[in-house]
């Protein structure tokens, strides 16, 4: 049929271009936000940039590989791979904690967050499994029960690290994918209750981060009354104004704003390039999300649709949670801003999502 003959063989070039611009701008901002801290802590202003540059190169390799494999052929392996990850996740508890959390795995010179790998493989697996022709979308025993043990175990391990932000992203990703697959709302609620109950229990009964929740509720009304981080972020945005104070000239990163190059990089960007710069960043991210949606809708099969939509949705959730926290719309949960924040796992997994989308963009039918 003509429709198939006109199927695109080349991947989405505009998506790749915008990704590269995002990546480059991210590197500039990581350097700007981190150079002074790098010089004082590590003796070289280039320290964080050099690291991030290495991750960026690795990301490009990951994308190169992901655009050239037959995802549908590898999809069945996502199930055992996800299962193996369950055994990798607890290894973080053998490592040195940072900021009282066990989120990182040190492998030689590389520091990795297995929770990011878990998230990526889980999307693959859900796309593969939910697109099985045999699956009955109306049956909760087929839509919720089979996924509960493996995803539940992973979530529990990540919650213990503790990494509430990653848990939230994974939960929302799963719910989003169940919804996109066609699960009935009633069954999605059924799947929502246990994690919601567990979350409430941990926060309000065990008291983990409960202070932050209360702070958050106060700061929604007035960011300057919130916790230290929220207050500093608000001040950082404020000092940037419309046009910013200029690249490299930000003052808040001078040990006022916490994590200026990682979780709060969006505030650093706001200070140095102002509202205009933030709008540019949001436009780039919005284009990436838009491309993902377009690619998902154009997929010829269910697997491709769910994979593209799952990757895109997960990216969106990540972006929303980070920017929401930095702008004090949401409580602070410690999520990196994809493509911008310093940190290898976030950059590689976010880039891998782009790699998957680029791969799938070649299957988009010209309609």
């Amino acid at each position, binding site marked *: 049929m003509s429709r198939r003959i006109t199927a695109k*063989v080349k991947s989405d070039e505009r998506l790749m271009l915008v990704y590269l611009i995002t990546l480059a701008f991210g590197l500039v901002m990581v350097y700007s936000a981190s150079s002074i801290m790098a010089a004082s802590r590590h003796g070289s202003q280039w320290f964080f940039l050099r690291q991030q540059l290495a991750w960026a190169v690795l990301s490009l390799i990951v994308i190169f590989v992901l655009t050239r494999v037959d995802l549908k*052929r590898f999809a069945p392996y996502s199930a055992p791979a996800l299962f193996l990850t369950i055994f990798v996740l607890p290894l973080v508890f053998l490592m040195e904690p940072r900021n009282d959390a066990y989120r990182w795995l040190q492998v030689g010179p590389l520091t990795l967050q297995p929770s990011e790998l878990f998230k990526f493989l889980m999307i693959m697996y859900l796309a593969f499994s939910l697109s099985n022709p*045999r699956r009955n979308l109306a*049956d909760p025993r087929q839509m919720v029960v089979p996924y509960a043990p493996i995803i539940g175990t992973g979530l529990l391990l990540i919650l213990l690290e503790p990494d509430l932000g990653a848990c939230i992203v994974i939960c929302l990703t799963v719910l989003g994918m169940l919804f996109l697959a066609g699960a009935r709302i009633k069954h999605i609620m059924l799947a929502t209750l246990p994690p919601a109950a567990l979350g409430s229990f941990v926060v309000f009964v065990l008291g983990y981060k409960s202070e932050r929740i209360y702070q958050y509720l106060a700061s929604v009304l007035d960011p300057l009354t919130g916790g230290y981080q929220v207050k500093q972020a608000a001040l950082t945005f404020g000092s940037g104004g419309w046009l910013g104070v200029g690249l490299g000239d930000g003052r808040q990163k001078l040990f006022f704003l916490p994590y200026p190059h990682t979780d709060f990089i969006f505030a650093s960007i706001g200070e140095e390039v102002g509202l205009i710069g933030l709008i540019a960043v949001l436009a780039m991210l919005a284009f990436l999300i838009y491309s993902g949606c377009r690619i998902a809708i154009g997929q010829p*099969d269910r697997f491709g649709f769910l994979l593209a939509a799952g990757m895109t949705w997960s990216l969106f959730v990540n972006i929303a949670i980070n920017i929401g926290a930095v702008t004090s719309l949401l409580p602070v949960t410690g999520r990196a801003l994809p493509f911008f924040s310093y940190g290898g796992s976030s950059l590689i997994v976010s880039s891998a999502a782009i790699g998957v989308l680029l791969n799938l963009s070649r299957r988009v039918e010209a309609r």
Partner: protein
Amino acid sequence: MSHEERIRGRRIGILGMARSGMASARLAARLGGRPFVSDAAPEARLHAQCDELASLDIPFETGGHTEKLLASDYLVVSPGVLLTLDILRQAQAKGLPIFSEIEFASWVCPGRMAAITGANGKTTTTTLIGEILTAAGLDTHVCGNIGLPLADVVARMAPHSVAVIEVSSFQLDTIADFKPNVAAILNITPDHIDRHGSFDAYKQAKYRITENQDDSDVLILNRDDAVTMAGPPETRARLTCFSAQALSDCSAWVAEDSLWMARDGRPTLVLPCREITIKGPHNLQNAAAAAAVATQFGVDPATIARVLRSFAGVEHRLERAGMVAGVQFINDSKATNVDSVAWALRSVETPLHLILGGRDKGGQFEDLIELGRGKIRNIIVIGEARQKILEALGRNFPTQFAQSLEEAVEMCFALAHPGETVLLSPGCASFDMFDNYEHRGRVFKASVAALKNGTNHVPANHG
């Protein structure tokens, strides 16, 4: 006023440049009328039509309907045009008469007319009647919803010719003097409620087929259709029935596994049912209806039997689309309502994998639960209506979504065992994913052909 004078010199506003609109314009121009054609689509999509109208010196407008249309003496609308359209509301407010193309063309039809309406089986029955009358040596013109508009056909007809017209209830909505010599209402089910507003309005629209008939005409009803029999139309025509059951007060019926018809008041055997090529209980009704209509034109039982033995059916209506690895594929793309799906389920006798979905027409998919129990193995759903279908049927049958019809075919094939059937009987309109139901049926058949050739037709990952 003679019928031709209703056209000569008149300003005739024609809505829509689809086949029937163009045919109306040609007919009007030929008979000395002053047609003006208007279409809402942009000219870029109507090049061929605009060129033809220009060559015939017929004025037209594209990209929307303007006041110019309201300067006509009356309007002729295509069957696809909604009467709730703004311009039509304005026309109605102005007291401008609105006619369907069939009404318009019937004014100048020189021969006899057999009009067939109903919710399901129209196309098969109309085609079948056309074949029978042709076999009986009559100059027969099959037209209406089937493809050729009546307005195109009347030019070629003589006083001894017969037009066999498939008429939809939308066309009947806007008739005034349409007076078929033989009218048949095959059945009435809630199909086009979305356009008619209510079931009763829909039923009344169907009954309008007989409103101008008199005692020189014949109205044929389906004795088996509970809806029709519960409130048959008032008519001045001679009334007769057909039935797929043993009811000998009909003019065609089934008894002892054979088709019978009344001839000179006596039951006459037409042929044993197993010799009829088109299968399924619905096709038995269609055959009986065709026999009942044909007998009104004096066709003998032997001719009817000969055609029923050879008539293979209509494309996209329970059409066999091929056998792959012992799995039978059936293309019923023309099933755009739930009742047609029910008929399709009745006619398939093996366990089946059903492809449903498209643009919802307000059908009750729950109606399929009883019929499908023990028969439907899986349902694969496509298109806009998929969530609704999942809610309606998911608890009773394993239901999964597909992204495209091609993928649905592949999924069904992966699920089906040899000896089972894959049935495309969508129960919905096609316009969310296809140009029309024919397009949908062709894509289905192409997908089956691709399976047969072992080609992986979902674009593969390259590299």
